[in-house]
């Protein structure tokens, strides 16, 4: 019987499915194991097992020498080499000996010379982390000392260790509200770069020196531009993403891409149909976070959500967009309940707190227990907030409208760090990392508590 050995088969194509590889090398697909998963699990594998690396087009399998020779002339195969004896090279990575293969890889900086993973036949190499998207880690492997490294990005990276805060330029004092939510403490890692945040409001002043607007639309009849003829939308936009420059203020996510979706008139009001159209535009244009500092009151704690809002939000959620809404300013009234659309499923309702972290008297409340999903979920600063206003200046406003964009900015920060996370996962992360306020745990006023960007990003 011909002698069998372990061979490394490299395919012409870089991405090869296990089914295709099984057909090429003539081994049952049932013996195939996804290489990275098996290595990561630390599971034992036998000689008959085939390790297949789909993303890099490589299979490691036990083959007869005749079969290996045959494969060398196969059109789909670039190279067949005998597996080599594994030996240690350079410094062993810290922490080796326990945990999974990838856990043991640690930081790329921790193994600058590379090392061989025992009995695997793969060399992990130091690599340039910055070439991978946020939320993923770059790994390079070399299947043989003479082969060039093959690099790829793996999702689900552990949260990076927090670095020192990066203060904004000295000419720009840090607003108390930005400091309170810890946004400045994550700008050394994320700023919302590449994340599309839509402000569904009265528009945004495109000429403001502290704002960069990437685009927009007007759904208000008679208003042909998304320019802000009220001031409210510009103020909210500044809280989300005023630039980190030397003028004005700085927002929670100063690197995000702002979009102006004008759904409210210069009088500060708009019809449901205009708002629905704006939400649909956000869905069609790949918006990641929709910030909606608008709404209407309800007359009872168990009032029904307006179904059209819920339908539109669910579509946005399915498209990957988190929808965040102001809880309402009816806290002082006899009907202090979270209003529409914040009370609808698919919306994350935000309450307002002041500089002392006390709930603003005007902030509408849940509780969710009375109406299913209509309660406050999280709190953010919303009293005496200084932000951008039309004309290039700054102004102070109060309302749950001002609290909402803080959370929208934080969602943008998380989206940059974890681009594959769903809206629900970002929402859950923001809630789970909030600093508890009021009664322990969730409560009708504060929800999960005060937004904490530092904990949300760094854990």
């Amino acid at each position, binding site marked *: 019987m011909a002698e069998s050995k372990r061979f490394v088969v490299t395919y012409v194509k870089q991405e090869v499915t296990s089914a295709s590889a099984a057909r090429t090398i003539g081994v049952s697909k049932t013996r195939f194991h996804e290489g990275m998963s098996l290595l990561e699990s630390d599971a034992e594998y036998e000689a008959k097992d085939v390790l297949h690396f789909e993303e890099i087009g490589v299979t490691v399998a036990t083959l007869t020498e005749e079969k290996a020779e045959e494969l060398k002339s196969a059109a789909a195969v670039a190279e067949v080499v005998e597996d080599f004896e594994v030996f240690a090279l350079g410094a062993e990575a810290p922490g080796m000996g326990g945990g999974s293969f990838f856990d043991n890889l640690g930081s790329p900086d921790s193994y600058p010379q590379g090392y061989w993973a025992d009995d695997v036949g793969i060399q992990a190499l130091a690599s340039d982390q910055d070439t991978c998207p946020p939320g993923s880690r770059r790994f390079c492997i070399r299947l043989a000392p003479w082969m060039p490294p093959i690099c790829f990005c793996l999702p689900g990276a552990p949260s990076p260790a927090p670095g020192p805060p990066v203060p904004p330029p000295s000419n720009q004092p840090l607003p108390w509200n930005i400091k309170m939510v810890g946004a400045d403490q994550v700008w050394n890692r994320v700023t919302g770069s590449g994340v599309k945040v839509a402000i569904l409001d009265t528009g945004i002043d495109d000429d403001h020196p502290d704002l960069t607007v990437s685009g927009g639309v007007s759904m208000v009849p008679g208003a042909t531009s998304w320019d802000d003829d009220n001031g409210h939308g510009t103020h909210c936009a500044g809280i989300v993403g005023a630039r980190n420059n030397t003028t004005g203020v700085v927002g929670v996510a100063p690197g995000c891409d702002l979009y102006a979706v004008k759904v409210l008139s210069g009088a500060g009001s708009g019809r449901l149909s205009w708002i*629905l159209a704006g939400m649909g535009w956000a869905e069609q244009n790949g918006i990641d976070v929709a910030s909606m500092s608008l709404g209407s009151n309800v007359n009872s704690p168990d009032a029904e959500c307006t179904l059209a809002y819920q339908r539109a939000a669910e579509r946005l959620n399915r498209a990957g967009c988190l929808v965040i809404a102001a809880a309402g*300013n009816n806290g002082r009234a006899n009907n202090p309940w979270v209003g529409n659309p914040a009370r609808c499923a698919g919306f994350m309702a935000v309450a307002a707190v002041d500089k002392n972290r006390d709930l603003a008297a005007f902030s509408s409340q849940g509780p969710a227990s009375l109406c299913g999903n209509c309660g406050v979920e999280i709190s953010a600063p919303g009293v005496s907030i200084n932000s951008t206003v039309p004309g290039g200046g700054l102004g102070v406003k109060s309302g749950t409208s001002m609290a909402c964009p803080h959370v929208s900015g934080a969602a943008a920060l998380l989206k940059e760090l974890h681009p594959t996370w769903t809206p629900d996962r970002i929402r859950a992360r923001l809630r789970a990392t909030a600093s508890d306020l009021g009664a322990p745990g969730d409560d009708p006023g504060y929800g999960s508590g005060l937004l904490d960007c530092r904990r949300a990003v760094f854990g």
Partner: protein
Amino acid sequence: MNETLLKLWADNPDASNDVVIVLAHDSEDTSPVSLGMVGYEPIPFQSGMFKATMTGAALLRLAERKEVEDITPDEEATIL
């Protein structure tokens, strides 16, 4: 469908109402014309949703159609 609204329309069958109509999920290909609607407008970027101005009586008839999931006033929202 909101019972308060149904009563309002029944009590005021000739009054005009600005509404948003939401079709059922499995009826998004339904033509508003086939539902007897006139003067309707689709809501941009929202399939299965229409705005219209209709009398209370017409809305009551529409509310009975299985293709219609909800009818709600084209209500006003404001800055908060």
